[in-house]
C-alpha cells in the first residue's frame, strides 16, 4: 500500500554519509554510523516454532536419539557387573556373626567367606569395588574434617593439625596423623577373592592395588612428611587415628612405597563421595596375557576380614566386580533415557499432518 512508502526512500537511501564527510570546515554530521551492530542488522537466526517446523524436528530428533540410545544401552549391557552384599544382616548370611560380635578392640580379626558364582566370564581388566550405603561421606562437617596441608607433608601441620580436624585432632596430647573424621573412618575391611576350580581347589585371584588412586592425588596432593625417608621417624611424635589399629606408616606391610599418606587405599578413601550410597575402587584384576578371561565363569569365594562396623547406623557393605567400556561403568539409565525421549519425539513427529 501507499502507506509508509515514505519510510524507505528517505531515511536510508540517498543521504548516506554524504553530509558527514564533507569538505574542510563542514560540521560533522550526527548521522549514526551504518554498521550492522548499531543498526541491529547482525546476522541472526531464530527458529520459528510452528507445527510445520517443530514436528519434523521432533521426527529427526527421534531418528537420531533412538539409535544412540540403543547403542548406549547395548554398551551398558555388555558391561559385566557383579555385586554382593556382605554386611551380614541376615542371620543365615556368613558374615552375620562377625557383624554381631564386632568389637573395635578385639585383637583377633573376624573372617567370613561368601560363595558366589559368576555366570559369565569377565574379560579384560576387572575392577573390584567396595560399596557403602547410608554412609554420609558428604556431610559438611565430615567433608571439612581434614587437614590438606598435613596430608601434603607439611611439617608444622603434622605437629599442629588444623582446627577443622576436631574432635580427631589430638589423641593423648599427640597430634593425630592423619587427622580428622575422614581419615579416622578409613575403610579397613580386607577382601580376598578365590577362584574355585572344578576340582575344588581354591586359587587366589591376584589383586593389584597400584594405580587405584588418581595420579595427581598420589603425586601432588598427598605427600609424606619430608625430612626423613624412614617413615617411622618421620611420623614420630604423632598418634594414629583413634579408630585405626596400626599407624599410617604401617598401612601396607608388603610395599614400603605404599605407606604413609601416599597409601593408595587411603587416598581413595580421602576423596569423599558425593552421595550417601557410593562405591570406591578397591583393587584391579589385570587381564591375563593369554586368551583366557580375567575371571572365568564359575564359583568364587570372597573372604572378608571384617573390621568395619556399619550396622550401628544401618549401613551396608558390598563388593562389586565390574568391567568397563568407553562410557565408564554399567549405566543403563542413559540408554533408556535416550530411547524414551527418542521414541516420544519420534511418535510426536510421526504425526506430521502432511
Amino acid at each position, binding site marked *: *500500500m501507499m*502507506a*509508509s*512508502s*515514505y*519510510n*524507505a526512500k528517505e*531515511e536510508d537511501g540517498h*543521504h548516506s554519509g554524504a*553530509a558527514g564527510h564533507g569538505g574542510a570546515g563542514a*560540521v560533522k*554530521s*550526527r*548521522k*549514526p554510523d*551504518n554498521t550492522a551492530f*548499531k*543498526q*541491529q*542488522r*547482525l*546476522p*541472526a*537466526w*531464530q*527458529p*520459528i*516454532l510452528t507445527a510445520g517446523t*517443530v514436528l519434523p524436528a521432533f521426527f529427526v*530428533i527421534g531418528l537420531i*536419539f533412538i539409535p544412540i540410545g540403543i547403542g548406549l544401552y547395548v554398551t551398558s549391557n555388555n558391561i559385566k557387573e557383579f555385586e554382593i552384599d556382605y554386611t551380614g544382616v541376615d542371620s543365615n548370611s556368613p558374615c552375620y556373626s562377625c557383624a554381631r560380635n564386632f568389637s573395635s578392640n578385639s585383637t583377633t580379626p573376624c573372617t567370613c567367606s561368601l560363595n558366589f558364582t559368576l555366570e559369565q566370564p569377565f574379560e579384560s581388566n576387572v575392577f573390584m569395588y567396595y560399596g557403602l550405603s*547410608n*554412609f*554420609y561421606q*558428604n*556431610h*559438611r*562437617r*565430615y*567433608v571439612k*574434617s581434614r587437614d590438606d596441608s598435613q596430608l601434603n607433608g607439611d611439617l608444622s601441620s603434622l605437629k599442629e593439625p588444623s582446627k577443622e580436624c*576436631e574432635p580427631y585432632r589430638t589423641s593423648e596430647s599427640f597430634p593425630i596423623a592423619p587427622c580428622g*573424621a575422614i581419615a579416622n*573412618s578409613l575403610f579397613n575391611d580386607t577382601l580376598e577373592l578365590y577362584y574355585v576350580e572344578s576340582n575344588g581347589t581354591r586359587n587366589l585371584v591376584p589383586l593389584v592395588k597400584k594405580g587405584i588412586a588418581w595420579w595427581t592425588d598420589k603425586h601432588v596432593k598427598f605427600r609424606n612428611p619430608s625430612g626423613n625417608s624412614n617413615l617411622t621417624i618421620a611420623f614420630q611424635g604423632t598418634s594414629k587415628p583413634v579408630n585405626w589399629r596400626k599407624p599410617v606408616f604401617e598401612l601396607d606391610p608388603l610395599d614400603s612405597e605404599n605407606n604413609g599418606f601416599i597409601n593408595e587405599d587411603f587416598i581413595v578413601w580421602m576423596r569423599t563421595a*558425593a552421595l*550417601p550410597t557410593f562405591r570406591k575402587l578397591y583393587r584391579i584384576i589385570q587381564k591375563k596375557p593369554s586368551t583366557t578371561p580375567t575371571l572365568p565363569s564359575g564359583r568364587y569365594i570372597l573372604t572378608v576380614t571384617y573390621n568395619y*562396623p556399619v550396622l*550401628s*547406623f*544401618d549401613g551396608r557393605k558390598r563388593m562389586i566386580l565390574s568391567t568397563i567400556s568407553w562410557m*565408564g*561403568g554399567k*549405566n543403563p*539409565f*542413559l540408554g533408556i*533415557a*535416550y530411547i524414551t*525421549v527418542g521414541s*516420544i*519425539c519420534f511418535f510426536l513427529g510421526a504425526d506430521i499432518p502432511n
Partner: protein
Amino acid sequence: FLYGSSLFSEEDRFLRANDRAFNLSYKYADNSIKTSKYNFITFLPLNLFEQLQRLANVYFCFLMVLQLIPAVSSLSWFTTAVPLTLVLGITAVKDASDDINRHKSDRQVNNRKTDPYLLLVFYFQADLLLLSSSEPLNLVYVETAELDGETNLKVRQALTVTGELGDSIEALASFNGEVRCEPPNNRLDKFKGTLIYREQSYSLDNDKMLLRGCTLRNTEWCFGLVIFGGADTKLMQNSGKSIFKRTSVDHLMNILVLCIFGFLACMCTVMAIGNAIWESREGYSFQVFLPYEAGINAQLSSFLSFWSYVIVLNTVVPISLYVSVEIIRLGNSFFIDWDRKMYYPKSDTPAQARTTTLNEELGQIKYIFSDKTGTLTQNIMTFNKCSINGRNYGTLEAQAFFRLLALCHTVMSEEKSPGDLYYQAQSPDEGALVTAARNFGFVFLSRTPETITVVEMGRHITYELIAVLDFNNVRKRMSVIVRDPEGKITLFCKGADTIIYERLHPSCDKLMKITTQHLNEYAGDGLRTLVLAYKELDEDYLEKWRQRHHEASISMDEREERLDELYEEIEKDLMLIGASAVEDKLQDGVPQTIEQLAKADIKIWVLTGDKQETAENIGYSCNMLREEMKDIFIVAANTPEGVKQENALRKMCPDAPAVPVVNKSRAGLLWMQTAQKVPDDKVDGHYGLIINGHSLAYALEKDLRLEFLRTACMCQTVICCRVTPLQKAQVVQLVKKYKQAVTLAIGDGANDVSMIKAAHIGVGISGQEGMQAVLSSDFSFAQFRYLQRLLLVHGRWSYLRMSKFLCYFFYKNFSFTFMQFWYAFFCGFSAQLCLDTHYWTAVNQFFVWGSLAAYFAISFTMYSNGMFLIFTSAFPFIGELVFSVSLCKIDFFKLYIIPPRNAPTSWRRLWTFCHQPSHQPLLLSSAEPPPRTVVLFRCHSTILAEQDSQSSFILESGTAQLCLSYLL
C-alpha cells in the same frame, strides 16, 4: 567587575551595589561552585558509607558476616568477599575519577575570568542585572542556546538610568543602587524585582537580566550587577532536578525480589527442619564416624543450618538483577540513539534516548497524547489567506491590516548585507506574518526598544513604541501601542478569534459575522487563524494608563495580576480589521503513522490549542477521523449541564452502567498504594470525540471527569482543542490515574512541557519552537513519524528483550539454587555444596557476568533485523518495508498487542521458568554416576519441555552453562 556579591532571604533578596559588607550580611551563595563530593581524607569513609546504602551491598556484607561465623559458614568467606570488593572497588574507582574530574572542572569554572572588554563572545558566569552596554540604547544581544536551546538572538535592554553610567569605572564604582528581587528559582522566563536608585524605584523584569549560560553577541561590552551567583543562578537551579520515572517492570521486579526473599526464607526453614530430623535420626547413629560437635545438639544444629543455607541458597536472590537490568536498558538506549531510521537529515538530528531507564515501557504504551502544531505539522508557516474587512479590499483597511502585521510582533530583524533583511522570530507564525507584510509592501526594517521603523509603500516611517503587551498562553493575544509621526496613538492587537471577539466594539458585529464565516472556512482547510484588531487611543487616557502601568510593573506583589488587569482594561472596544490564515503543513508520514499506531491498539488523543475547525480538519487529514466512523461527537458547551447533555455515552453504549465503575485494588510495593481503575466499556463501531477547552474545563471537574473518561475511552479518536498547557497535563493525569495504562505525551513547544512531564513517557520533537519540550522529555527526535519506530520496533524489542532476560535470569538463579536445595536431601541437610567451593564461586561469578554476556550475545542477534533476510514472512516488523507491509502487517500488530502487554512477564510464565529448574536437578540424583549421563539428558529434556517457546534459545544457553558446570 563583580559589583555586589549577592543573596537573599527566603522571601526577597536585597542587595546593594558596591557595598560588600551589606551584601555579605545576608550570607548569599558566592559565585564559586562546588560540585565535588570528597576530598583526599574523607574519600574512603564517605564513599564506603554511600555505597553501603545500596541494598545489594548491605546484603552482601550481611552474607560475609554470616560466613565469618565458623559454625554457620558453609562457604569460605572469599566467595562473597571477592565479588563484594570487586564491586565496591570498581565503584569507588569510578566515583574517585568522577570526583577528580569535578574537582578539576570546579577549579576551572571558579578560575574562569570574565572580561567583557576583550571578548566579543563570552559566557555569563552569574545571573546579572544589565547596567550598561556598548550599544545604543543600552541594548545587548544574547543567545540562550545553552539555556533553552533557542538560537535566535534575543535583546536585553538596560534601564536608561543605569545606562548613563556607561563604561566609566568611577561612575560604576560609585553606583549604589539597591535591588530587591525574588529569591532564586528555576524559571528562566520570569524575573521580578525593583531597583532603587537615587530614591527612585524602577521595575526590573526578565528583559534586563543576563542569565548564566547566555552568550553575548554583537555587543562590545556590557556591565552588570550580580544578582544570583553560583548555585543560585537560574541555570544551576534548573539542573539536576529530574523526576525519576520508573517502569512497570521495575515495580514487578521489586515485588519479585521481595517474594524471592520470602521464598529463600521458606527454603531455609525446610532445610532447618530437615536438618533437625536428620540429626536426631541418622546423625545420631552416625556418630561412630562423625561425632556431634561439642555443645551442639540437634536443635542448635538445625538453627545453624538455617543460616548456613541462607548463604548457600543466596544465589536465588537476584540481587545483581538491578544492575544487569540497568545495563541492558542502557544498551537498548544506545540502539535508539544509533538508529538511522530515526535520524532526520534535514536538521541533522538523530533520535535521542534522554532517559535510559524507560525503554521497555515504550512497548506498553496504550495512550498517546499529542500536540498538533509542530508535532503533527511541520510548524513551517506560510501566509496563506486573509480576510480584510470582510473581504472588502478597501485600500485603507488593507493598509491597516498590513501595518498591523508589520508592527505588532516581537520579531528581530538583522540586515546581514544591505537589502538582505533577515527576520528572527520566536514563533514561526510571527515570522510568516511579518514576511507576508513585507511582501505586500509593509517592510519591517528594524526595531529599538522605543521605536519601530517600517517602510510603508516606499516611505520610511518610524513609529514610537509606547508599550508591548506581550503574548502568553493565557492571554492568547499580543498588542502594541504605537504613536505614528503625526502623533496618532493606536493600539494594534492580534490574537485568537475567541479572545479578540470578546473584546470587540459592538459596532463590529456585522463585520464579525462575515469574518467568522471566513475564519470557519480557513479553519476547515486546516489553517491557523489569527484575528487582527486595532483601537485608537487618546493622549490623556494613555498617559494615565502608562502611569498605572509603571506602578504595577515595579510592584513586588501580584505584579502579573495587576498587569493583566491593566492589559484587559486597555484591550477592549477594539475595531476588527480582519483575519489572517497561516498554513502549517502536515509532516511527512503522519497519517500513516497514526493509522499504524491505531492498528496496534494504541489510542491517540490530540490536545491542541487550535480552533475546533482547524483541529477537526487536521483530524481528518491525518486519518484520525474517518468518514466510516459511526458518529463524531462534538462537545462545545459552555456550562456543566451542557457538557453533561452532550455526553455521548448513551448513544454509543446504551447498556453501560449509569455510574462509572471504579475497581479499587492494591498495587505497588507491599500493596501499599490504592489503585483505581475504570474498566473499559465495550462499544460497537468506531466513534470520534471532539471537545473544546471550555467544555474540557467542566469535564475535568470532579463530578464529570469519570464520565468524560469513559466516553473518551470508548472513542477511537479524541481531539481536545483550545486547551491550555495545564489542561493537557490534567487530561494525561486523568487517564494515568483511572486507566492504569501507560501513557506517552509528545510535543514540541513550551506549552507541552507540563504534559510531557506528567505522562509516563515524554517525547520531545526537536523542531522550530526551541528546546524546552526536548529538555524535559525522555526521548526526542525530529519527526512525528519516528514514533512508530520508537514504539513498535524499539519499544517492542526492548520489552521482549527485557522480559526474556528476566525470565532467563530467574531461570538461571533457580536452577543453580535448586541444585543445592535438592542436594541437601542427600547430604543430611548439612549445607554441603554439591560443587567444589572454588568451582562454585567460579560458576556463580560466571553466571552473574555470563548471563549479561549471554543475554547480549543471544538476544540482540535474535532480534536484529538480520532475521528478515532469512524469514521475511515471519518477521514483518514495521519500518522494514523492503517487503510488502500489507502482506503481514496484521500479524505484526497482533504481535504488538499480544505479547508485550503482560504476557512475557506474566506470573504463569515466570512460574514455568522457575519451577522447571527445580525438578531438573532431581534427575541428577536419580541417576548414578558418571554424571555426564545426566548432563546429556538434561539438555534433551529441556528441548522437550520448552517446545512451546522461542525462549528455548536462551534456556539452552542457560542449560549449556549448567551442563558446563556438571561436566567440569
